[in-house]
């Protein structure tokens, strides 16, 4: 929550700086004109200050609903949101036909495990660098991610994971393995098994071959 407040105030200061720059460019103008500009600038700065103070006040009282990251890149080191962390997404190398870890950087939630899981799986769905294939059908959405006290992660996908799947045991195994590898790699201490759900329901299979009716692990 603290991070989000910092983010919302950051753009305000940037706007203020821009205003001052405009003044400097008009330096060569006449005296009366200069007075008017000074006056206007004072008003603008005043309003700016007021709004900033008001926002700070408000943010102390209430939680501002802000969409979670992707976050803007911070200009000021003291104002930074959580630093980007490396995440391995397991994608298919189209030439070797194997799943390989692809490093990406994401500003992950530091305090909320469930949100972090959501971020990692969403990244896996969305990222497809050139020369790699994503094994999750394009357009699949993650409805919800949840971790229970048995260290089982439940990943609830939209039905497109099934409807949009190309089928075949090989492809189905790659899809499931990519999800498992990515999750276990990112949460080695917190997640021991993963159960895949579709629209909140337990499923038997994605494409008619693998038995996904239980939480799954990978061989050690």
């Amino acid at each position: 929550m603290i991070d989000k407040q910092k983010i919302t105030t950051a753009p305000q200061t940037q706007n203020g700086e821009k205003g001052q720059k405009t003044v400097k460019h008009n330096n060569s103008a006449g005296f009366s004109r200069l007075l008017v500009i000074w006056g206007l600038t004072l008003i603008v700065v005043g309003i700016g200050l007021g709004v900033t103070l008001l926002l700070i006040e408000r943010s102390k009282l209430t939680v501002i609903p802000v969409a979670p990251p992707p976050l803007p890149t911070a200009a000021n080191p003291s104002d930074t949101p959580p630093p980007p962390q490396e995440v391995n997404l397991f994608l298919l190398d189209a030439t070797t036909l194997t799943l390989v870890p692809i490093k990406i950087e994401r500003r992950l939630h530091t305090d909320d495990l469930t949100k972090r899981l959501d971020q990692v799986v969403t990244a896996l769905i969305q990222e497809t660098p050139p020369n790699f294939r994503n094994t999750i059908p394009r357009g699949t959405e993650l409805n919800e991610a949840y971790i229970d006290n048995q260290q089982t992660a439940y990943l609830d996908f939209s039905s497109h994971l099934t409807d949009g799947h190309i089928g075949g045991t090989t492809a189905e195994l790659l899809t499931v393995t990519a999800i498992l590898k990515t999750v276990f790699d990112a949460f080695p201490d917190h997640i021991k098994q993963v159960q895949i759900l579709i629209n909140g329901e337990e499923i038997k299979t994605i494409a008619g071959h693998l038995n996904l009716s239980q939480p799954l692990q990978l061989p050690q």
Partner: protein
Amino acid sequence: MLVLAITFKSTAQERAVRFIDAEGQTLAEIPAHHQNDQVYLPVDAVKQVIDPRATHQYNHPRKRLTLKTKGRQIRLQMGRSAISIEPDGQTLTLATPPITIAQQPMLPVDFFRQLLPILNNVEVIYNPNLNKLQIRSKNTWTPGETDNLQNWTIIIDPGHGGSDDGCTSSTGIFEKNIVLALAQQLQKRIKQQGIQVHLTREKDTNKTHFERIQIAEQNRGQLFLSLHCNTSFSPHEKGIRIYLNNPKGRIRFPSPTQPALIGQQLKVLAQVNFLKQSQDFAHALQTELNFLTETPIKTINLPLIALSEAYMPAVVLELGYLSNVEDLEKLSNAEYTENVVQAITRALQRYISSINQQTAPTAPEE
């Protein structure tokens, strides 16, 4: 000169004819000459694959070859398809006549295909696409075993069906149709062997996994073969794959820790009791189908929905990748699918006789 020799050697090896035994082990690999789409082997190959003590005489001007082996004289005339075997007085017609290459007599592969069964009392099957010739002992069905065959019931499960197309090729061919056609072909062939066969679906209809297993159990199936086609994210991946239902495979179910899971876990474990027999059948399939493939077929262990709760040995056979052009072409070719059907039938025979051998000494007849 050296370069020439190396190139020659490598091409000769590349196009060698491989003689293999029933288990797929190489018996001999003999460099062959390819001419007008035909494959020819030197006369010395007879010594390597038929009889090491064989001798031959070649009459250059008359282009006549006489082979002496196993108390017989085999006479061939270059350029002629007919050959005579004395003292049997037998005449055979080769599909391709022997020819001379660089003035040396050369024998077509068909010579070996036809002569090996006569001289060595073996069965021979030839795969012209891969230049593989398999030598196996003659079909060993004794009358006693044929009786046992009639007690066998095989369940063939054509995957998907109805609104579930399975995977689809870029040309619009559905997995559900390929596997149904092959299942029906297979049913016909296996029935000819006296084995009982039931299909889990006879038409293009939806069937749940549970319904399929029910059909298998109602018909007292002793073996469950689920037929599928594969798809990969890469168009290059190809070949046959065999899958075994194993909850401790490439992905695995956790060991039961919660009481709520135990009931479910027991069902899964019950199926594991058949894992050894399923592996035996997978191995039989692998051995027979390897004959049709360039690279050895892989068997992969996974928790499989199609086989879960099947209380009998069970295997998923993926016939090829619809995402691969070569595999798709093969699966659309009647000759190839017939070869697949034959190979599966031989695998069944192999499996059943191995089970009969295992049970024969210990189990008294009812």
